[in-house]
């Protein structure tokens, strides 16, 4: 049964004498090769050279801390539900009294894992985050030998507590976000504390 009109009948044509000599074909091929020798090279010498990337290039994630060094993530699960690759998993825990300097709100992520093999670096997690906790940075995810090593836990994802070792993500804050945050009435990122017992 013929389904389309696009099928072509294959015919094995007898080659002419010029074609059977092969020399014209070899020369036309050689001309193409030599032309490319004098063109600008398309490859770069990685790792000595690196390609220029966009200012907001999306690389390895970071879990931010706030001004006093407490983790911003509250394990709300919005990054995980937004993730199209289902790369993010987390387990929440309740903050104990005396841990206020470690965790910003009464719930925090006890474990937070991103499977870098599944991640497609789309940045949806960053967009979904209501706490400005997760950001994609310009750091590259290194290649490793086992799959298990590429499931990044909190030890890799959370930034260092020292101020000078923090990861700078200010370039990722668009003018629109800065404008939004300038309005007090939005107040989306203030901590609503219950009364201290």
């Amino acid at each position: 049964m013929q389904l389309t009109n696009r099928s072509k009948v294959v015919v094995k044509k007898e080659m002419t004498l010029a074609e059977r000599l092969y020399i014209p074909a070899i020369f036309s091929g050689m001309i193409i090769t030599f032309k490319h020798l004098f063109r600008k090279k398309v490859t770069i010498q990685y790792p000595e050279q690196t390609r220029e990337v966009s200012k907001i290039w999306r690389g390895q994630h970071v879990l931010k801390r706030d001004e006093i060094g407490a983790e911003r993530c509250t394990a709300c699960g919005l990054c995980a539900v937004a993730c199209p690759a289902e790369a993010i998993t987390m387990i929440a825990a309740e903050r104990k009294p005396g841990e206020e300097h470690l965790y910003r709100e009464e719930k925090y992520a006890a474990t937070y894992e991103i499977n870098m093999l599944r991640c497609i670096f789309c940045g949806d997690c960053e967009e979904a985050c209501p706490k400005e906790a997760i950001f994609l940075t310009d750091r590259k995810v290194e290649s490793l030998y086992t799959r298990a090593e590429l499931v990044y836990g909190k030890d890799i994802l959370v930034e260092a507590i020292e101020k000078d070792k923090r990861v700078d993500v200010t370039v990722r804050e668009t003018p629109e976000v800065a404008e939004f945050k300038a309005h007090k009435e939005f107040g989306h990122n203030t901590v609503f504390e219950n009364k201290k017992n």
Partner: protein
Amino acid sequence: MAKVTIDGQTIEVPDGTTILQAARMIVDDKNYTGVNIAPPTMCYHSKLKTSGGYCRTCIVKVTKGSEKDPRPMPKPVASCRTTVMDGMEVVNLTSPEVLESRKAVVEFLLINHPLDCPICDQAGECHLQDLGYEHGLAKTRYDFKRRTFNLIDIGPYIKLHMTRCIMCFRCIKVADQITDGRYQGMLFRGDASEISTYISKAIDNDFSGNVIDVCPVGALTDRTFRFKSRVWFTKPMDAHRNCTKCKGKVSIWLKGDEVLRVTGRKDQWGEVQDWICNECRFEKKHVNDWVIEGPTHIDRHSVISANHYENLSSLKLDIGKQQKQLNKK
């Protein structure tokens, strides 16, 4: 019988029916294909007597009082407390005025409500969240300090976040009507009012856990489920067990073999169908304690349906059947 028209849909209802119930009857009708014209509710609960009339979320406009007295009612009325009259004409979604006033009501409800949805265990199935999403603004105009309260443990199973409470009185109605000894109530007045046991005294009662199910926000939550998982990562299944105290018909929220949470089965209005006892709710936490009937249907607009548990579990069942049939051949 009274004939009432709501948003252009006419229905005959028995005398004494409220506008809200009539609207729900219209939507419940099998032949009805239109949009959901039933007003949203926060404090009204169909299984609780004398509930409703506090939150004013369900306000509608009566454009024609009745056949005998066709004058319109001067102000929007609470549809959960207003009974229908013969020939009454009501507008809900078709009236910009009603939608505008409902928006104002939502803004008032959100004045003292904290924006802690990322922490709250109710997030994802919270009626106030839905309402805010549908009617609210992204920003607040309120400039003053929000009221805050201490967290209270009502017994070993229930946590009270008074900060999140919107004063709907549903839990007090449950305490009054479902449980034997009432143990909580509203203290103080107006802005200072709060729900409490006053001396944080927990009274053991077999049905006290039902206050968690009726709470439209995250003020009363299950301590056994506290911060265990977000609801949209769990799989709700209809299940039952032989219980001597209650009917034992519940929804269990599964993660693997573990039952993270047990709740009563809710109808399409988010209201519990059967009250369940504390033993079922808090103590039966393994999948072997229950007979699973099938996935609980969750509206596809809910974030919980993002889990695709319904499709997956039905797929699993079918594969098993097919495999058995294959083995026979």
